[in-house]
């Protein structure tokens, strides 16, 4: 690990302090607070996808399955009278069951099997849930009575901070090196002695746990949801993939940037375009995939290199690797 970068740490600290202090003293209004909690949910989902897709190189098309499963489990344990933290943990742990069911057989094989298997898992869970729960699910009255958006906000903020720190340390540990080696060249990693299957499963389990945290936040945030098929809907998968790809996959801050971008854009587009905003997102996703494979983070890096080149023209020539 590189030497401690005080500039970065103080920047992160200041941002965190602002995020903690502002809702304490300023009343932002329910609308903005709702958007912020949604943003935290998207950041969690995007980080979850990024750990598996960006660092380990395994495409997961079924994050909605993990998310929805955690929403259901969290909701029912919470309504049964457990404290929320324990319910969220139970929900996140329940996702691990599905991660094992789908991961152990499919991650052994290369190619499409994992992606298609997770997609199939989502479809299957949608059908099962539609048949079991035909009506909307809602929490009892006293939960609605004691609803307070500020606690949701702090819970979400805490989860995001924890997950980001955890991913930062995982990324620069032996585990993270194994993940990136699998992404870069699986065969070479295997030859060098990395047990690729084991590390892929570990990555999937951590990723599923984070998606489960997002689901727990959703269950705490929304006391009722109309159709159970909604929480297993593919839009959750699509949004998290989109946030990662737009922000820059394989980076720590990329998913955060992408999620912010997604929430702001979603807010603007859904006001002006109505139903068509989802199509715009689809086109944006494909355009970014085609022309900006590094995403926003890649753009920032290019901009930085350009600035550096303007300031000190000689440094780049000596070190073309930047």
């Amino acid at each position, binding site marked *: 690990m590189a030497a401690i970068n005080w500039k970065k740490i103080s920047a992160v600290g200041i941002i965190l302090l602002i995020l903690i202090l502002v809702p304490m003293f300023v009343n932002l209004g329910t609308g903005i607070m709702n958007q912020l909690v949604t943003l935290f949910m998207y950041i969690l989902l995007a980080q979850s996808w990024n750990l598996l897709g960006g660092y380990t*190189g395994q*495409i997961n*098309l079924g994050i909605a399955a993990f998310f929805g499963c955690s929403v259901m489990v969290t909701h029912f344990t919470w309504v049964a009278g457990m404290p929320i933290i324990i319910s969220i943990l139970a929900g996140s742990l329940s996702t691990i069951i599905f991660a094992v*069911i*789908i991961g152990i*057989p*499919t991650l*052994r*094989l*290369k*190619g*499409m*099997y994992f*992606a*298609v*298997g997770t*997609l*199939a*898992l989502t*479809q*299957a869970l949608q*059908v*099962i849930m*539609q*048949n079991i729960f035909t009506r909307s699910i809602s929490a009892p009255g006293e939960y609605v009575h004691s609803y307070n958006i500020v606690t949701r906000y702090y819970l979400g903020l805490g989860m995001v901070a924890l997950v980001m720190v955890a991913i930062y340390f995982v990324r620069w540990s032996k585990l993270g090196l194994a993940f990136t080696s699998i992404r870069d060249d*699986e065969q070479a990693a295997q030859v060098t002695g990395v047990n690729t299957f084991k590390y892929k499963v570990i990555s999937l389990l951590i990723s599923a746990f984070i998606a489960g945290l997002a689901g727990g936040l959703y269950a705490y945030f929304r006391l009722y949801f109309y159709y159970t098929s909604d929480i297993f809907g*593919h839009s959750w*998968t*699509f949004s998290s*993939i989109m946030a990662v*790809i737009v922000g820059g996959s394989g980076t720590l801050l990329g998913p955060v940037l992408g999620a912010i971008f997604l929430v702001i854009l979603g807010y603007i587009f859904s006001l002006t375009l109505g*139903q*068509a905003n*989802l*199509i715009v*997102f*689809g*086109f944006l*996703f*494909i355009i970014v*995939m*085609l022309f900006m494979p590094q995403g926003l983070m890649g753009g920032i890096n290019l901009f930085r290199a350009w600035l550096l080149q303007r300031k000190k023209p000689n440094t780049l020539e000596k070190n073309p690797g930047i």
Partner: protein
Amino acid sequence: MGNVLQVLFVGIIIGALYGLVALGFGLIMGVMKFINIAQGSFIILGGFVCYWIVTLWHLDPYFSIPLTMLAMFIVGLLLYRLLFSPLLKYPKAEMRLDKSLLMTFGVVWILDNTEILFWTPNSRSVITSYGYGTVKVLGAALSYTGLIGMGLAILAAAVLHLILTRTYFGKHVRAATEDAGAASLSGVNVQRTYLISCGIAISLAGLAGTVIVTSYSVTPGGGLSWLLMAMATVVLAGAGNMNYMIPAGIILGVLQSASTLFINPAYQQPIALIIFLLIIMFRPQGLFSKR
């Protein structure tokens, strides 16, 4: 006994349709090593094209097949030109596969939402004068539309087999499948071969859409469940094993249909998922591979 026969025949009919759905998916996967997650959505699009041709021009749905297939062929060419050919710049096959997965997932999103925007999320189907007619075979009632669909699926598989084995173009396709670099060195225009096979694959989706819109119904967003069946069929047949798509589809169809004797018919997709998982656990090369 009659019940069992009925279930068996229904399974064979729907299984042939699964085979047809899998043909296009398998062609793109085998030839170009791209995964087209949007194949199901293209099938739904084909169904809508057929629906609108029938509704606006009052053609018989089966006579509209050439038109539907032509329209979908053009869509396939566009798909290759706009999305797949830029992916060829990635040197490694795994990378292309991953990128194509993500990109076509975006296409699913666009197609589904565009269809919902234009044509509402209602399900549509083409009803013909003979649509409800049935024929009795050994005491089992089979609908005409289902039988025609089965015939079309087997015909499409046979024609595709003949194209791949008997024509010059088929030779090019097989060469590009084996080793694109070597094929290109020996004078095969790989880009053009890819382009046309992508067109054929999507026009097969148009044919499948026609069969689905006549004997079942199409719903925007229903594409992924057809894709799931296609993928289970491909895994059952063994990747790239084009000749066994229809038999593998029939096995899947009969298994699913037989399961309705014991459990709620709504749980067809979980059963396909279970079959998929069992196959890749115990025989990942597919049922029909000799390896």
